[in-house]
């Protein structure tokens, strides 16, 4: 019974949070609601005994949304409403149709759920982390390594783009200090 109560609580909270994300005109409301929604989703993982995924959900999205906040801080006055200039009716209609289709699919999902079977059923007394590690490094090794290489490429690209002036601020400061000393 407690599981049912917890499920409906988290479901209602998640939907409410993401509704705020879509409807709100204030960037600060939208981002905070997004962070809250992501953390409430981790509740479902904990209810399904997938603790590792639940914690990863919290860790990854809290860091990712933190970066969003940083962008918001740089580009907007987040305490004011953002006026959106979205006049295109085509986009709105397409999104309406897509979301309607999505709702139909979600509501039909229970029909197919009885025939779904786990590829890697959980084993008694083997932890969550061990199971994920085992699957990740046997069956899904190549996608895993590919993702790792892509992240490495992105990281090196970021460093190259940013590295041109990396040591400059410290040098400038030393020069300024030198100038001050000379002028004395």
């Amino acid at each position, binding site marked *: 019974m407690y599981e049912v109560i917890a499920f409906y609580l988290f479901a209602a909270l998640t939907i409410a949070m993401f509704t705020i994300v879509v409807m709100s005109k204030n960037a600060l409301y939208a981002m905070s609601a997004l962070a809250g929604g992501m953390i409430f989703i981790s509740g479902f993982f904990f209810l399904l005994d997938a603790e590792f995924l639940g914690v990863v959900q*919290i860790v990854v999205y809290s860091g990712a949304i933190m970066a969003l906040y940083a962008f918001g*801080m740089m580009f907007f006055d987040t305490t004011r409403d953002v006026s959106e200039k979205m006049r295109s009716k085509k986009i709105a209609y397409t999104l309406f149709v897509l979301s309607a289709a999505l709702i139909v699919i979600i509501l039909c999902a229970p029909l197919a759920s009885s025939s779904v079977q786990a590829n890697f059923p959980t084993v008694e007394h083997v932890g969550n982390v061990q199971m994920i590690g085992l699957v990740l490094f046997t069956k899904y090794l190549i996608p895993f390594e590919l993702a790792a290489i892509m992240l490495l490429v992105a990281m090196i690209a970021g460093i190259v783009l940013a590295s041109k002036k990396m040591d400059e601020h410290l040098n400038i400061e030393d020069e300024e200090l030198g100038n001050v000393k000379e002028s004395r």
Partner: protein
Amino acid sequence: MFDTAVVIETVVKAVIVVAVIAALAGFATFIERKVLAFMQRRLGPMHVGPYGLLQLAADGIKLFTKEDIIPQNAVKPIFMIAPVIAATTAFVAMAAVPYFPEFTLFGYTIHPIISDINVALLYVMGVASVGIYGPLLAGMSSANKWSLLGAARAVVQMLSFEVVSGLSVLAPIMMIGSLSLIDINDAQTGGIGDWLIWKQPLAFVLFAIAGFMETNRAPFDTVEFEAEIVAGYATEYSGMRWGLFFIGEYANMITISVLVSILFMGGYNAFWFIPGGLMMLLKVSFWIFLFLWVRAAWPHVRPDQLMWVCWKVLMPLSVVNILITGFALL
């Protein structure tokens, strides 16, 4: 899966943990003022009660009765909820922390941990890092330049220390092979020689530094540094909302102390004739004292120095540490 008895037991434990830790967090503010006073050859609070012990109650009354000011241009709901986020995440993180060895009371075995999940270490660190949303939201919603600077520094600091703390605990986890804090504790049962601090000294130092950054403590308290940005994110706050931030900060200090004690210093195992519970209290007290000692002894660092030390010194060191541990384990 869930029994009513288990639910009641969990609720009771949660209430006890929140009450005790909140009281201890308040008491830690008094200890901090006393320790800092002795290190600076002052007396500290002396007038309210014996040795100023009742200063705590006086501060509490002051905070509760102060006017709750909300600036006119602030984003009100977020401004109001930010301190609550800071305090609750600090307490939620404690759900997976074991404090003492299990004991029997009235013929009923009690495990002093609210929920023994098998990814406890990751959970505690993840939720504690969500706690930085408190200062961030406070700074962004205050409509104040100093607060905004504090929030920007919170983001920068969080993105820097997260990497170091995550990578530094990886090496001990590789040696033990489990993320459960109880397993980590049980791996160090054989006396002081079994403590992980001897096998992983570098990881210990890195994790301790990251812990200081995570709790915004002295050498790294760039988020609220008075000499540079007034009071940082807390500039516009008053009364109990301001107090909640600091209950959260001290509760986080206690969590980090418990985490370091369990990870590297033998946890709640009995030592010679000292029982395990007392040993845990001694270790946590020592760590709290260390936090205060460092605050009295070290100057502040600038935010750019903090990032420099995180990305160019601590992160490569922790990666090298993981590499060496990996080769040693092979």
